């Protein structure tokens, strides 16, 4: 049978344009219903089955048969695939191929935009746009398609990557058109993210705000779907409900956000396919526990240019290690058996895909899993496994033809067939010209050496055998014609043109000398081409291992010890001997005592405690040292990801700091070094009713959920004064209600009265018999009012940012009349003016020791505030609201001694027992008493002294900071950095691109940080 070249076929496909059934045709119909048979192929039917000498038979864009024994119909066009391999083409499950990017919205005014600017019957928030349908936005893009096809992809999921609820993605083939033939499934998946994208609306302005928005949207949609008589028609909620049956994809940009997405999925009993960030290996246990499927990028960070040691110091160990370890991410998933697909998403240059994928393979990804992640896995995730991802009868004829193992670096991709149409990179039927020839040109004989790539051969001419370096000969191969042109000394340029004949390979034709004379020429193959050994694309000395991950993934992080891995192993007891103990109990300060810590609790305090022989007890000599309860920071903003304020509404009680706890914040470790063991992570003070707090222990190394204090009461941030009325936010922030202290009061009345009504409605519904419930329909769940109702039901407690006495009085009065009580006034710098009023209501105070003069409302702040409040009988704490000061809170407590003569023992309680009381944790923390949590600090000196250093900080009986171990960690950081710097320099010297280090300073939050930075580092 005569071999056809595919080039002719490509011409044919042009005629096939507009061959859709419903379209009229200009001129005669030109439909071909040919069979195409690919015989003698190494046929990869699916990621786990390869058939030798097999045949693939296709017709009209579909696979008719694929197998070892296939009867080829007579009318089939047959391609001999001897020596070639056919794979199902790859599927990219996360692209925006062919979907135009949305225009970046322009805010109309300099003032914030509190309402949606989108016209039409859509929802209230511009970032929630489930009504977006990628299939309606799709148009094939031959350039982008070509780029993906050259990588081996034949189909992709594509969506408009914009907004928090992004609408539906569509599944398309990567043919050049027409569009009607490319869309395989219109609405294929529903997509989400935490990124508000082009929305110009103020809400959300924080990550926790985005999370709350998604949650509220689910509740709204549930209500909307169930409500009997609709008072509103909402296109967004309609669309949202309609797409719930589709696969749900959530794009995340960090491992911790993967976990956040999974938490939302659990709440609403949906399953997200999580488009990961690439750093999942840094928290793989928790990632695995989500039981989610993942789509993983292979965009590894570039090495840094670290030759300048000062530039190098700008790169954190986190970034250095991530550079080294990123390629092991997919392999780690495969080894753990976590389902994943791969995507080209996030790659700046898609051409890096194979280079990076091979790196992943080198770092432990097995080829079978890789192939699965490119074929069956995405197909299954997207519900497209009956169409693409393997080569079976009835499926779309989407396959690639390669020279061999697709993962080999030297593999050649000949053609990518999409929907039965060939896109040829290199005609597989073309003769391979590479080899060594005897070239006879006229009277002369030379040696011609053809090397280079199959599709771009390069020629070299050797006049004599002794010649080392050949004369360059330009060689062009077009189908079966070939031209060779070379220049020889004294002869000028000689041009040969001719044909290629095979079996044996022979080139021959006519040529013209420099003087115009014509000659005959032939080139006879003497030696076939021998490919060079593959060059390693890496110069790395050692491959990273998952065991080398630090927890958290930062300097001062630690590898998981074997003890931690063996969860059943009992925690070691600790005995601190012969030390001074600040009990914070009625015993006061005890000298020369021993304290035994067992099972994470304080077990005994006695003059002498003997260690039973053979017991697992770590003995610490406390001679000359002083032991206190751990410091508790009642007001902290560390360890929070992407924004501490959701100030886009007067009440944002629906947002929860607990959703955005950041276990990787170095300030956790720094504060452990200052003796802090627990903290209330608070929302900022941008609005009268802020968000819900997270109460954590500083369990450095643990995942966010493990840091939270189990069973702790719920707290919420309120705020008064200049921040909530936006006094210092510039001239454009003058439109959000309230702008005065008068307005602040009304916000509270409004919210609480509405919450009361809401609560009654919810309770009434809950008390209905089940059958009546169905009839009545559940009222709309409102997360904002939920939280406020919790306050009324004494299930959530208020920490209120406050300064001047008028507003403090106001809120107490609002509380009196509506039946709630403020738990703690925080900052409360004019608390000394209303101590009696606070005392009457049993409200606690959490103040700064000596801050003032930074705003008009703190003009009357005095450092004696704590002393007056203490003497008035209130529970008084000193807090930090500052990542730096938090590590010296013991010294802040000492200022209560300096300013107002509070007894030392009582002053220490300002940062230990009293904040524990304010946070309702004093049954477990805040004092050294048998039965309480072993959260203690061993100080080198009187803990109130500037000269005191925390030498050991213990939480739940585990030493989280040790001044001696700290020295070792510093050495480790130095060594790790030095080692990776050597590797980066080697990478640079190997020719890899590098990026210049830039200073990177994470933002530190205080209450006043109203700015939106939830999309920044």
């Amino acid at each position, binding site marked *: 049978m005569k071999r056809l070249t595919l080039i002719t076929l490509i011409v044919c496909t042009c005629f096939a344009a507009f061959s859709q059934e419903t379209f009229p045709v200009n001129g005669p119909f030109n439909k071909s219903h040919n069979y195409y048979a690919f015989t003698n192929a190494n046929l990869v039917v699916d990621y786990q089955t390869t058939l030798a000498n097999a045949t693939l038979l296709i017709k009209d864009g579909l696979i008719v048969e694929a197998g070892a024994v296939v009867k080829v119909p007579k009318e089939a066009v047959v391609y001999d695939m001897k020596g070639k391999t056919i794979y199902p083409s790859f599927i990219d499950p996360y692209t925006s191929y062919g979907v135009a990017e949305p225009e970046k919205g322009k805010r109309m005014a300099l003032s914030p935009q509190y309402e949606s600017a989108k016209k039409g019957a859509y929802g209230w928030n511009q970032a929630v746009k489930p009504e977006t349908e990628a299939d309606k936005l799709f148009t094939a893009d031959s350039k982008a398609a070509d780029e993906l096809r050259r990588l081996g992809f034949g189909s992709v999921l594509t969506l408009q990557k914009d907004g928090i609820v992004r609408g539906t993605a569509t599944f398309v083939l990567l043919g050049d058109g027409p569009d009607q033939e490319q869309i395989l499934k219109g609405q294929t998946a529903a997509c989400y993210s935490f990124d508000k994208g082009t929305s110009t609306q103020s809400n959300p302005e924080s990550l926790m705000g985005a999370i709350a928005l998604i949650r509220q949207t689910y509740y709204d949609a549930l209500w909307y779907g169930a409500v009997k008589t609709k008072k509103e028609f909402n296109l967004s909620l309609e669309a949202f409900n309609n797409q719930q049956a589709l696969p749900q994809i959530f794009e995340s940009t960090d491992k911790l956000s993967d976990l956040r997405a999974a938490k939302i999925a659990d709440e609403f009993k949906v399953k997200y396919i999580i488009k990961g960030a690439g750093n999942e290996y840094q928290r793989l246990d928790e990632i695995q526990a989500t039981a989610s499927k993942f789509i993983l990028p292979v965009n590894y960070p570039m090495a840094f240019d670290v030759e300048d040691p000062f530039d190098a*110091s700008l790169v954190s160990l986190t970034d250095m290690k991530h550079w080294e370890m990123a390629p092991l991410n997919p392999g780690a998933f495969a080894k753990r058996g976590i389902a994943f697909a791969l995507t080209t998403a996030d790659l700046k240059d898609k051409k890096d895909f194979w280079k990076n994928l091979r790196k992943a393979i080198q770092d432990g990804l097995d080829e079978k899993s890789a192939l699965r992640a490119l074929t069956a896995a995405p197909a299954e995730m997207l519900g497209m496994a009956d169409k693409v991802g393997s080569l079976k009868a009835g499926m779309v004829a989407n396959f690639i033809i390669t020279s061999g193992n697709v993962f080999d670096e030297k593999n050649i991709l000949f053609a990518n067939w999409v929907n039965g149409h060939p896109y040829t990179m290199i005609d597989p039927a073309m003769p391979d010209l590479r080899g060594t020839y005897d070239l006879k040109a006229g009277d002369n004989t030379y040696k011609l050496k053809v090397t280079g790539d199959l599709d771009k051969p390069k020629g070299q001419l050797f006049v004599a055998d002794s010649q080392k370096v050949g004369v360059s000969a330009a060689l062009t191969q077009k189908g079966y014609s070939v031209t060779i042109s070379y220049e020889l000394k004294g002869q000028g340029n000689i041009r040969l043109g001719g044909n290629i004949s095979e079996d044996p390979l022979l080139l021959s034709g006519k040529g013209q000398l420099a003087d115009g004379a014509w000659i005959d020429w032939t080139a006879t193959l003497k030696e076939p081409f021998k490919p060079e050994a593959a060059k390693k694309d890496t110069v790395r000395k050692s491959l990273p291992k998952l065991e080398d991950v630090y927890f958290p993934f930062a300097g001062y992080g630690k590898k998981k010890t074997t003890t931690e891995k063996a969860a059943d192993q009992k925690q070691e007891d600790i005995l601190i001997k012969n030390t001074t103990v600040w009990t914070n109990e009625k015993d006061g300060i005890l000298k020369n005592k021993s304290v035994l810590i067992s099972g994470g609790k304080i077990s005994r305090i006695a003059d002498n405690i003997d260690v039973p022989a053979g017991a697992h007890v770590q003995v610490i000599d406390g001679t000359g040292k002083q032991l206190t309860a751990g410091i508790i920071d009642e007001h902290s903003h560390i360890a929070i990801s992407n924004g501490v304020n959701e100030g886009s509404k007067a009440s944002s009680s629906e947002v929860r700091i607990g959703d955005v706890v950041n276990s990787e914040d170095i300030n956790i470790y720094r504060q452990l070094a200052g003796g802090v063991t627990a903290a209330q992570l608070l929302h900022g003070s941008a609005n009268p009713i802020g968000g819900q707090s997270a109460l954590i222990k500083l369990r450095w190394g643990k995942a966010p959920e493990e840091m939270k204090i189990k069973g702790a009461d719920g707290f919420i941030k309120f705020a008064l004064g200049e921040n909530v009325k936006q006094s210092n936010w510039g001239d454009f922030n003058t439109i959000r209600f309230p702008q005065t202290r008068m307005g602040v009061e009304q916000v509270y009345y409004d919210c609480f009265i509405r919450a009361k009504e809401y609560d009654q409605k919810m309770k009434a519904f809950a008390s209905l018999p089940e059958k009546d419930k169905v009839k009545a329909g559940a009222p709309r769940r409102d997360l904002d009012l939920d939280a406020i109702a919790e306050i009324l039901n004494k299930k959530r407690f208020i920490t209120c940012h406050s300064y001047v006495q008028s507003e403090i009085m106001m809120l107490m009065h609002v509380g009196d009349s509506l039946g709630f009580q403020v738990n703690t006034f925080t900052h409360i710098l004019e608390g*000394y003016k209303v101590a009696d009023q606070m005392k009457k209501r049993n409200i606690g105070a959490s103040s700064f020791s000596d801050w*003032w003069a930074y*705003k008009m409302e703190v003009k009357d702040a005095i450092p004696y505030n704590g002393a*007056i409040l203490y003497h008035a009988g209130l529970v008084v704490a000193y807090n930090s609201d500052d990542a*730096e000061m938090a590590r010296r809170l013991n010294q802040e407590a*000492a200022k209560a001694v300096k300013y107002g003569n509070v007894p030392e023992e009582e002053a220490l309680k300002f940062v230990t027992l009293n904040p524990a009381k304010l946070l309702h944790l004093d049954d477990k923390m805040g004092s050294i008493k048998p039965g309480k949590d072993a959260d203690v600090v061993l100080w080198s000196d009187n803990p*109130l002294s500037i000269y005191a250093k925390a030498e050991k900080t213990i939480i739940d009986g585990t030493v989280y900071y040790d001044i001696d171990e700290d020295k070792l960690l510093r050495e480790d950081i130095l060594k790790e950095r030095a080692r990776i710097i050597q590797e980066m320099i080697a990478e640079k010297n190997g020719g890899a691109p590098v990026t210049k280090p830039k*200073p990177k300073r994470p933002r530190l939050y205080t209450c006043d940080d109203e700015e939106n930075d939830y999309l920044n*580092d």
Partner: protein
Amino acid sequence: MNPLLKHTTAALLFCTGLLPAQNPYPAPAQTKSILITGGTAHLGNGQVIQNAAIGFRKGKIDLVADASILKLAKDAYDTIIDATGKQIYPGLIAASTTLGLIEIESVRATIDSRETGSMNPNVRAGISFNSDSKILPTMRTNGVLMAQVAPQGGIIAGTSAVLTLDGWNWEDMAYKLNDGVFMSWPKQSARTWTDDGPGPLVANTDFGKQVTDLNKFFADAKAYAETDKPEEKNLRFEAMRNLFTGTENLYVHANSVKEITETVDFAKRYGVKHLSIVGGIDSWMVTPLLKTNNVSIIFGRVHSLPDKNDDDVDLPFKTPYLLHQAGILYCLNQEGDQEYHQNRNLAFNAGTTAAYGLSKEEALMSITLNAAKIMGIDKTTGSIETGKDATLFISSGDALDMRTNHVEFAFIQGRKLDMYNEQQALYERYERKYGQK
């Protein structure tokens, strides 16, 4: 108790009950000689006298001795203060501060620290200093008795002044009205600002231009300074003149190794006689360069977080020790958030450095004599030495530790200060309300 002390305390208590919420009266010049005996004197130059006799008259110290061996006529001094069990220190000097230039940070009308434009050597902090600032008395009650008040902003921010913290007006208080020129070395990177708030740090695209502009400005200023009678008077260049003669210092905010190195080279190129680096986060890494070029450091707030995640957790606490070990002249300041009112915690910053490597006396030097040396006023102040100003205070305990810092008496140039501030007035007012007093 010494009868005089008893009397004074009673008078103080009596007075304060009547005082409205306003700053205390500035103290009159010293007329009667004063002897402080029995206390532990920390001289500020590294020395300690356990049982000290410190005498001063007409504002100047004329006696620094060991009381146990001293023979003194009974009437050698008019007034004797028994400081037994107490600690005596030279007045602390707050370096590079906007104290008196900012009253309330969020109220624009109360801010006089930043002039518009980038080259303003001629604007002077001293004449803008608010002698009636409510913040000043809160400094004195913690031992801060002098301040170097400096403008901020732009590239060349202006001229600083050294002032004492007691007086009727800035003229009374000025110690060195034209102290030096403050500038900031151009930053290599800056945080961007977007519609939605702060963005990431990006390279400062103006960096090259800013350095070029600075070079031109200094070259022109230096040429201008060569003649006493310029063709046309240029206020900016006039203000630069003294940098080249050495009667004024050049103070440059610089933190990274590159910023510091570039600054040192720059100052050398233009023959600036006295260079001091302000901030100096990375200064400990380039001590040989600083030493060779005689560059001093006004080290930024000790109570800061480390600059980089991987830094030693206590790096800012121990950097002064590292500078001290390398023999660099340095003092401390409180640069950073709310620095103007935070200066009352200056002593505790020094206290921390004593917990991280230095001796307490060395730590004290960094907020007294070293500061005076850097500002070129150490001949007359900065330590308790005969012939120097009687600017000193008595604390009942270790003044570097907040636990024990309790300033009972303070003198500026022999003038006995009224140790009272508005915050105490409010304290007493509300103690009364609750019957706590």
